């Protein structure tokens, strides 16, 4: 089926050809030429209704991470509007294309919704404010410089005359947008930077929010689907006659070359019939693959000769050869399923002239490109209506399920069809957190200084499967080195080691990999931070002090680590039976650290008492939502550590549902104590970064408790449990 690269390339074509522009998009408020297609607006980001309701347009997706509220705060801050009258709406990807990508990028992946759009959305709000003030000044025939806006009210200073945004919005829309826009200093923020509540909560409490699974269309049918259980396998045959008489069955259809779907009056009927449908697959060679063969494949990469080098200083191998003490360890990290609470789905109405999609997507433009490609209709005849996401975590950045839904709906022109994956399909056709192994060798000199480190990663590349066009010219996958980079703004390695070599031997099993909250930072932080702990113990030094000596050139990393250590009381006695572990990392532009406090009984009963988590995300747009992201990231990350593990047998994923893919419940939740310490001169992400440090902090605490180092996961395989 469709993979990312075709969609990416197609999305690029969408943006460049449909708009007749070069790559990139215009300053969002500069081009209002074709605004008539939408309701009256001050500019692309702001609509003000006569009753002073302010509608703020949100291009990115809301999957629980709170970006919708945060982005609205940023626009409202510059707009100087009444926050209690703010609503949001999502312009469709089709409207974005039609308006020369006026809303910019639509993706909510890589913790980038706010940090990559904050400047232009704030400018959108500021421009709208200037236009509204100018409209009032024109009406009063006074200079705009004598007027100010606050709380949706415009005041003329010298005369104290006032009007509201709603009264001048229509006139403001006709005013030339300003070209010189000065944004507020964040220290003057009144709405942004504050722990305001989410805009979307109330409807979620009364069952009124519409997720894409809830979409209803007149005359809609529903479909259930099954794709080849062995990824890469093909659909050989199916016997539709066997289920033709089952109640509600409308049609049985081949979907691409690897799946079959049943279209029914209701989804439950379609699903029941699909379960009874005889299907034959051509699994191919991959049917011989198991977790054991994958592990062997990766093990071979630990000694391979021609790796990709991600970070290098001095001569690590020479330093290791001449070390007074050599420390060596091999770690491994397995596949993880996303298991979003809302199984993947999309509803499509296809006619020979138009293809409309209703779905929850982290990448609306990729969904649009997929709709165009699968329907065979030009982009201008397709559109995607984005609904709330019942979780995303990276999985909904792909559009494979949209492609399927369009192919199914094409079999029923003029009839809307909702394609919904079962939980079992969702878990077995995932794009899994990739699997890697890592050998680390550290060199300590006679004074127990770390003089060299070689870190060899062997394993799967996400880009090689989903976006090969983003691989380096030599074939490297730069995403493999998240958190290990020598420089840049995304994920800088936080230690200065005179002789350093971090390299990657790419080994790609057939199991589809994907972006999973935190992505390669998850295992890289375990590898680095647990091994730092091993080195500290080998050197006979306190793990925090050992790190600090290596972090002098990385003050932002160090500041967060220090803040966490201080809050946790590192160096002071813990309560009886409680042990601590510490970890730090940088990713998605933010600096994070954690200190876990655990106890562990002799029979393996693990109690997570508290995790102190620190984050320097540069600017904190909504501290209350950041705190929730930190909490939530720990549940996602620690579920993987405790239980997560997708295993392969006969080429197939063995886990199908939450009974075999366990996740944390409330009883296992540690108290999370969050430190938000924005240092102000950059913009980092918050949806993912803290997830990296939860697992190594807990693992280091387990070592402190037991003296035993765990290097393979999940913990349940070591008879350690929290429930």
């Amino acid at each position, binding site marked *: 089926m469709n993979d990312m690269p075709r969609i990416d390339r197609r999305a690029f074509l969408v943006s460049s050809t449909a708009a007749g522009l070069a790559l990139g998009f215009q300053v969002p408020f500069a081009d209002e030429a074709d605004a008539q297609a939408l309701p009256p607006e001050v500019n692309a980001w702001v609509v003000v209704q006569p009753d002073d309701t302010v509608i703020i347009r949100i291009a990115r997706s809301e*999957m*629980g*991470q*709170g970006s919708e509220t945060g982005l609205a705060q940023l626009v409202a801050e510059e707009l100087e509007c009444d926050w209690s009258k703010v609503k949001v709406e999502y312009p469709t990807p089709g409207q974005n294309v039609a308006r020369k990508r006026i809303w910019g990028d639509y993706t909510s992946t890589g913790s980038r919704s706010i940090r990559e759009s904050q400047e232009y959305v704030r400018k959108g709000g500021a421009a709208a404010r200037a236009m509204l003030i100018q409209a009032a000044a024109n009406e009063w025939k006074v200079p705009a410089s004598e007027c100010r806006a606050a709380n949706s009210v415009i005041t003329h200073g010298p005369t104290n005359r006032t009007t509201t945004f709603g009264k001048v919005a229509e006139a403001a829309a006709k005013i030339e947008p300003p070209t010189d826009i000065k944004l507020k200093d964040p220290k003057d923020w009144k709405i942004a930077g504050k722990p305001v*509540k*989410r805009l*979307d*909560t*109330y409807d*979620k*409490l*009364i*069952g*009124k*929010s*519409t*997720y894409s*699974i*809830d979409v*209803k269309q007149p005359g809609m049918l*529903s479909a259930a689907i099954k794709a080849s259980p062995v990824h890469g396998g093909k659909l050989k045959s199916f016997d539709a006659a066997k289920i033709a008489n089952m*109640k509600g069955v409308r049609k049985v259809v081949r979907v691409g070359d690897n799946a079959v779907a049943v279209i029914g009056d*209701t*989804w*439950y009927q379609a699903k029941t019939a699909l379960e009874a449908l005889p299907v034959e697959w051509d699994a191919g060679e991959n049917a011989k693959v198991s977790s054991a063969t994958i592990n062997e494949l990766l093990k071979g990469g630990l000694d391979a000769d021609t790796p990709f080098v991600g970070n290098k200083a001095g001569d690590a191998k020479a330093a290791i050869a001449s070390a007074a003490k050599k420390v060596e360890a091999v770690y491994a990290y397995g596949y993880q399923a996303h*298991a*979003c*609470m*809302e*199984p993947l789905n999309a509803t499509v109405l296809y006619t020979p002239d138009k293809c409309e999609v209703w779905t929850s997507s982290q990448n609306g433009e990729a969904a649009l490109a997929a709709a165009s490609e699968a329907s065979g209709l030009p982009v201008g005849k397709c559109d995607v209506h984005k609904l*709330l*996401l*019942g*979780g*995303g*975590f990276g999985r909904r950045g792909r559009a494979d399920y949209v492609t399927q839904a369009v192919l199914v709906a094409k079999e029923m022109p003029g009839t809307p069809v909702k394609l*919904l994956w*079962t*939980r079992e399909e969702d878990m077995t056709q995932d794009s899994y957190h990739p699997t890697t192994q890592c050998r680390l060798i550290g060199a300590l000199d006679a004074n127990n200084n770390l003089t060299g480190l070689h870190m060899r990663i062997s394993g799967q590349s996400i880009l090689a499967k989903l976006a090969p066009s983003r691989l380096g010219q030599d074939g490297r996958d730069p995403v493999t080195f998240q958190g290990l980079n020598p420089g840049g703004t995304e994920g800088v390695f936080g230690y200065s080691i005179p002789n350093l070599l971090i390299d990657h031997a790419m080994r790609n099993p057939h199991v589809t990999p994907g972006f999973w909250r935190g992505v390669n930072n998850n295992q890289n932080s375990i590898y680095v931070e647990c091994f730092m702990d091993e080195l500290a113990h080998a050197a006979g030094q306190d793990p925090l002090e050992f790190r600090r000596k290596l972090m002098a050139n990385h003050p932002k990393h160090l500041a967060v680590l220090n803040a966490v250590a201080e809050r946790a009381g590192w160096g002071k006695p813990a309560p009886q039976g409680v042990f601590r572990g510490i970890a730090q990392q940088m990713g998605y532009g933010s600096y994070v650290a954690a200190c876990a406090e655990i106890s562990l009984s002799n029979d393996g009963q693990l109690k997570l008492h508290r995790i102190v988590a620190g984050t320097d995300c540069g600017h904190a747009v909504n501290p*209350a939502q950041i705190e*929730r992201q930190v*909490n*939530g*990231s*720990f*549940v*996602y990350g620690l579920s993987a550590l405790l239980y997560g593990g997708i295993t392969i047998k006969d080429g197939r994923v063995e886990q199908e*549902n*939450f*009974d075999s893919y366990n*996740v*944390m*419940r*409330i*009883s296992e*939740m540690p*108290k*999370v104590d969050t430190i938000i310490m924005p240092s102000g001169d950059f913009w980092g992400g918050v949806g993912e970064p803290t997830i990296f440090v939860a697992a190594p902090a807990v693992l280091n605490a387990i070592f402190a408790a037991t003296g035993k180092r765990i290097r393979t996961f999940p913990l349940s395989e070591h008879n350690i449990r929290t429930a």
Partner: protein
Amino acid sequence: MARFTLNGQTKEVDVDPATPLLWVLREQVGLTGTKYGCGIAQCGACTVHINGEAVRSCSLPVSEAEGKQVTTIEGLAQNGVLDRVQKAWLDHDVPQCGYCQAGMIMAVAALLRAKPKPTDADIDANITNICRCGTYQQVRAAIHAAAASA
């Protein structure tokens, strides 16, 4: 034909009696606040009340609701006034993606009926719904607040 009381109103639905209540609610009745998460009573996203008790509707044939009082998330608020659990959820800004929260709220509402002042251990033992966003810390605080508000 299945007949039950749904959010105070009598419902008659022409459906195979083996159909799970979840799908009758979502597809025949058209109330979509109750969510599909796993289909095997593991995650609790489909939790509704039957005669006041929390039940995972994905694994309950509609025939077993025959003649009973079924309450869904849409019927928890009375005359537009939020239930104390919903109110506590609003005050604590609990939901993230929100998909599991209808089931979570229904499970908690039933718990508070049985145990008006639940301890943390009561919560741990009784609230086993899955939330992948990880709202558990806010959920616990909101449960205690809802209990205190009674």
